[in-house]
């Protein structure tokens, strides 16, 4: 009986946390996966919803390191060879947000389309 009460309490707390605006700890973040292969982004264009925080998973399949960079998104992160990086972006207004690989900017180009 007590266990049940405890469970209920935790659930209530959890719900409060989820509802509390701005915290968004429990909010389901859409996950978008991008790969780096031969200094190219695959896919090079991804579409994400507006006004939503998105979890970007960037897999670097190259043996060499790369830096994910975007002035428009205000993001910058070094991704070592054969490693994965987590980058949170947004909430964003609708528009096009280019990103590039700072170590290989001639080829590694992509954009995030926010709709």
């Amino acid at each position, binding site marked *: 009986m007590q266990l049940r009460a405890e469970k209920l309490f935790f659930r209530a707390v959890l719900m409060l946390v989820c509802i509390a605006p*701005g*915290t*968004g700890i429990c909010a389901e973040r859409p996950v978008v996966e991008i790969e780096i292969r031969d200094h190219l982004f695959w896919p090079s264009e991804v579409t994400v919803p507006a*006004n939503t*925080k998105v*979890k970007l998973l960037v897999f670097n399949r190259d043996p*060499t*390191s*790369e*830096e994910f960079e975007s*002035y*428009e998104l*205000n*993001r910058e*992160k*070094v*991704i*070592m*060879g054969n*490693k*994965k*990086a*987590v*980058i*949170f972006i*947004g*909430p*964003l*207004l609708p528009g096009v947000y280019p990103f590039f690989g*700072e*170590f*290989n*900017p*001639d080829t590694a180009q992509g954009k995030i389309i926010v709709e």
Partner: protein
Amino acid sequence: MLLTSVVLVLREVLEASLLISILSAFSGVLGIKRSWIGWSLLFGLAGALVYSFAVSTISDWFDGVGQEVISATMQFLIFLLLLLFAFLAVRDRNGQQGSGRMIVPVMIMMVSVAVAREGFEILVYLHGFSADLPRFMTIVSGAVIGACIGISVGILIYYFVSALQGRLLWIAGLGLLSLVAAGMLSQAVLLLIQADWLPSQLPVWDSSGWLPENSVTGQLLYALIGYEATPTALQAALYFGGLFLFLIIAVLSVRPGKQYP
């Protein structure tokens, strides 16, 4: 290829170069030997090496945002050390004994952390091309050019600040450092937003059409004052809060009635 490495290395070197040049100008008026610069570069490079070896492991910390957390911590540390520097320097200027020797380790620590943070990225970048010798040579040439431009800008700033007399030097020097400090704080906030440790918001303004961050002026202002074209409210608030705090500390450390050198 060449241009990429010039720009990348310049961007990284500029920040540390500015910090060293302003602190060096202060060393001049405070009568501190400049041997601290050598130690800072040495410790900074050692730190950069350690960081670049450990970055694969660090990146996996905290559910994949270890890099952001470590980098933000380093920037926050530089911010705190800048506040401490302002306090110690202004007290020293007033002829207070004792604080003078403490200022040297503060400067060494500050610059070492800055060099380690920036140097790490250059090392990782260079290492990626080390297998391909002809390309590597091109990259290294670009890196040297970029570093030289960054150092030259630092030397220019140094002579500009040093040429000022008395009170003016203090105002310009501390003014520049306050902007660097505020920039550090705002960058730390940005990294924690990227890591989802701090809530993200829509930008409070967008000056990218007027002054893009990737323009030459934008890059320079980014290194010097932490310019952001699209900051969030939290970032902007902490930027101006940091600026205010730095200036308050500098002003409050002044002891009235003392003779200034």
